[in-house]
């Protein structure tokens, strides 16, 4: 029997640090592809290029974790089929220094949230930079409810990347507990 595979999707605006994040923990060189996706209905006219990153962590002989980086918004329907199967949860990366991207981040987040009933966490990336916004301000700007985890992250620092992945996994475990109201 071949190994089981599960996915964690890393999404967020362009330049937020998705590729860097996956690179920090992947055991293979991150494969970044520019995929040409053609809409069935408009095959003749338009192809849209979507940048996908792909990383891997072998858990044991029977289990493999794939990390997918995706910009998450353009041509979402097509991406969705690739991403949703076996997706345990997702991480939304946000560049803490660039409030001009918060709107898009929120839009991506809400699109994902509308589709996926899976747990997610938000990573406030590039916290190492001097102009980084405070988490408390980002929480409001991104409209995150108190129960959604917003985690400080520096994608170039493996420890913070690990912490973000672990927090997502803890959320996934919690979701599995029988629900108490």
């Amino acid at each position, binding site marked *: 029997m071949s190994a089981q595979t599960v996915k964690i999707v890393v999404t967020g605006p362009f330049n937020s640090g998705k590729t860097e994040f996956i690179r920090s923990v992947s055991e293979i060189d991150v494969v970044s592809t520019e995929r040409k996706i053609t809409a069935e209905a408009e095959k003749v006219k338009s192809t849209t290029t979507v940048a996908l990153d792909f990383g891997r*962590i072998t858990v044991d002989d029977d289990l493999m974790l794939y990390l997918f980086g995706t910009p998450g918004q353009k041509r979402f329907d097509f991406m969705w089929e690739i991403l949703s199967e076996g997706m345990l949860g997702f991480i939304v990366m946000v560049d803490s220094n660039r409030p001009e991207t918060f709107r898009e981040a929120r839009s991506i987040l809400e699109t994902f949230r509308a589709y996926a009933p899976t747990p997610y966490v938000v990573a406030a990336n590039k916290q190492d930079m001097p102009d980084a916004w405070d988490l408390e301000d980002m929480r409001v700007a991104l409209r995150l409810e108190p129960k959604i985890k917003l985690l400080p992250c520096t994608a170039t620092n493996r420890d913070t990347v690990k912490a973000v992945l672990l927090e997502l996994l803890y959320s996934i475990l919690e979701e599995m507990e029988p629900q108490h109201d």
Partner: protein
Amino acid sequence: MALQGNLRDFTIIQLLNLVHLARKTGLLVIETPEETAQLGFLDGRLTFARLGQEDDGLCTVLYRRHKLTTSQYRQMQSRQTTMGDMELGLILINSDILTMEEIINAVQEMYVEVVRRLFTLIEGFFKFDAEAGLPEYRIPVSIELENLIIEGSRQIQEKEFLQEEIPSLDMALKFSDRQGMDIQKVNLSVEEWKVVSYVNPQNTIKQIAKATKMRDMEIRRIVYSLIQAGLVELIRPTGALPGTVKPMPVQDHDEQRSLVNRLIDRIRSI
């Protein structure tokens, strides 16, 4: 750390929303090539506003709002240079020229006017300074931001902006359970009230639009204003889900838990 940026990317309404929901205290400075504006906040309420170098001494403010006659104005103005607004205000009250309420209302109206003018700015550098103090001689007022936020949101015209802000009409709405959020104290239009009356985790925005016969733009704008004012929040509808996800390769509960625990152990060991 910094709370700064450009209004192009983070609008006045979003800044007011941030101050309001995070109950911030401090001074927001906005700079455009033409002028500089300052807004002061205490615990998420507006306490001060100033545009450029405009004369906003109390006497001038009252005179412009026809609360003082020309002769009263002249008389008081000579004192304005040496006295603070508080002192001037007390003199006006003690000499039965104006009541405290009239003075406070006039000052509040002036501040609101400044914020209204800022709504039209589409560009400008902003910086929020949590350390900066406010001038002490000012008349202390405290203006709730909800109404200003809703008023400002009504003016939004760009379709693209609203589409990005409310990307999916398949989401539902629920009333915010934040403390102090009270829909009763907000001035809503008839159309806005209609939407409010359908707020319920079971109704998607699309369904609300249909029930209220609203167009896409209209419903998005209203939902946006209610969200920004902190009155409602977006949630996944409790009904059917638009997407299907099969997250786990195994169905058994214990197996699923064991799978996640193996992942956790592995990540810890990296």
